[in-house]
């Protein structure tokens, strides 16, 4: 074999090895959480033996989540908050993204700079004055209070993403609609929005996942179980002396489900959205 062939062969093998090792690294912890959630307590906390598949396959962890804990309430709260966040952020992003993509105005760069700067403010720093403000207007320990925070946290990034989707749509398309007698809002609604579908999906998923995954705001601003989301409710399980690993893993699996499903179906759009702002082609 020539030197070049050997080199090519070596690179091929190396590449396959890297891909295989990385796949194992990603799957191993997920698999471990998944398997643990179907084991009995006795099997989970056995110091001497570790089983890679449940000896006794059981759903008891999942059942006790809903029976012993208020997991049903956490799940409902998480779903409602994430859906509302996604819808509101989507509206904000479509309007704002349109403005930033289609108009040239004086304070445009200032506003974009403001969005960029907002990403540098540590969230914990903002929660301190907001905690005092919320205490005054009685928004502490409410779902509305959380919803407002989720919208604010996710809106700037989503708006910028939406803007880059708008920039890909030729202005001529919009102008054609205007010629046909649509006003700007009608043109936006009837012509642009349908073409914008990938961007809408991406932003919806970003905002939904952003709210769904939050732990910090929930921990700081909600204190009673009726307002807890899944991460906050599950966190209350840790910190006690005996961590119930089976239940915790079952809760973790449920917490991952919507993100996995969303990602599986719309990964193309999500990747497109994520790279739209930063990778200029």
């Amino acid at each position, binding site marked *: 074999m020539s030197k070049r062939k050997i080199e090519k062969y070596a690179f091929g093998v190396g590449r396959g090895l890297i891909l295989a090792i990385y796949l194992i690294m990603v799957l191993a912890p997920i698999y471990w959480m998944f398997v643990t959630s179907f084991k009995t307590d006795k099997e989970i906390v056995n110091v001497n033996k570790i089983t890679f598949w449940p000896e006794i396959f059981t759903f008891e962890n999942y059942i006790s989540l809903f029976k012993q804990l208020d997991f049903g309430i956490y799940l409902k709260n998480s779903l409602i908050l994430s859906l509302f966040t996604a819808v509101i952020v989507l509206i904000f992003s479509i309007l704002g993204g349109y403005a930033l993509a289609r108009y040239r105005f004086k304070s445009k760069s200032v506003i*974009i700079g403001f969005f960029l700067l907002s990403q540098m403010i540590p969230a914990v720093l903002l929660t301190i004055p907001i905690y005092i403000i919320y205490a005054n207007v009685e928004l502490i320990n409410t779902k509305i209070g959380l919803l407002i925070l989720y919208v604010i946290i996710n809106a700037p990034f989503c708006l910028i993403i939406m803007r880059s989707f708008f920039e890909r749509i030729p202005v001529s398309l919009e102008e054609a609609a205007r010629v046909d007698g649509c006003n700007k809002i009608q043109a936006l609604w009837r012509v642009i929005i349908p073409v914008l579908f990938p961007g809408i999906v991406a932003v919806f998923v970003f905002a939904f996942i952003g709210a769904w995954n939050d732990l910090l705001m929930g921990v700081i601003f909600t204190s009673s179980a009726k307002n807890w989301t899944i991460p906050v409710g599950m966190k209350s399980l*840790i910190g006690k002396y005996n961590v119930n690993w089976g239940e915790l893993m079952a809760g973790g699996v449920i917490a991952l489900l919507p993100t996995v499903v969303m990602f599986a179906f719309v990964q193309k759009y999500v990747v497109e959205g994520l790279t739209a702002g930063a990778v200029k082609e």
Partner: protein
Amino acid sequence: MTNKKGIRTETISKLSQYEPYFFLSPVLISMLIMMGYPLIRSIIMAFLNYQLTRPNDIYFIGFGNFMKIFMEDAHMPMILLNTLKWVFISVGFQFLFGLILALTLKKPFKGRNIYQSIVFLPWAFSSFAVGIMFRWCFNGEYGVVNYILMKAGIITEKISWLGSSELALITVIIAMIWIGVPFFAIMYLAALQSIPLDIYEAATIDGCGRIKTFFKITLPYIMPTVITTLLLRTIWVFNSIEMIMIMTGGGPAYSSETVTSYMYTKAYGTQDFGMAAAMGVLVMIVLMLYSGLFLRGTRYEESGDF
């Protein structure tokens, strides 16, 4: 008339001058109320003696909170060091693994799409879920990591990963690297795929080897993306504390506490809002200086707004 970016350049009538502000008003107004105003208040608060437990004892103390941070707090040197480790080790390995993954994914192979959807998954995962997942894997008594290491003969006794002050931080960093690699890989893969193929063909004809091609063509081409992602992630990792909250709570004995997580501890543990605000203001200044220097140092010009 439109320019190449598709922005209207025709003269705009008086009324439509206000249109963009109208469209932007929902997000701008809510950001002013929920970010602008609180930011100003927290900057003021950094100069106040403000303990939530003593609401009648609030007064101006100048740089008192900052003195408390640097002079009176015995944990601070360790926490600052932790913060550096947290940011640079996490981001460094996320970057390295993300770049390697993107390079190996660049050429198509059978099943690449499915492979991608699996390995990119952690991007969408919550710190909470990943935190408990790794906490369970690295559990001192029942953890699978200890089991495998013992079976492989690497260790002879079980290690208390999260219970030891030497290993707690690094264990959280491992979880942080795991969750962060996909972001870099996604970004770099997109950047790599935007490189025109004929450049590579030309390089092959000119007799460039693989290594030379990488440093002379690939790397310069994806540089803008590298800069944006490194900057974004550094800020994000610096400000992120959920993984620490879930896995160690900053312990044992502050050994896995970063400046940002310590700020949380000060604000909601000891309820010293003044000192926490002062720390937050310092973090923000550091991040802004870092961004400015980073962008200048890398001669960053036009690689997007974010």
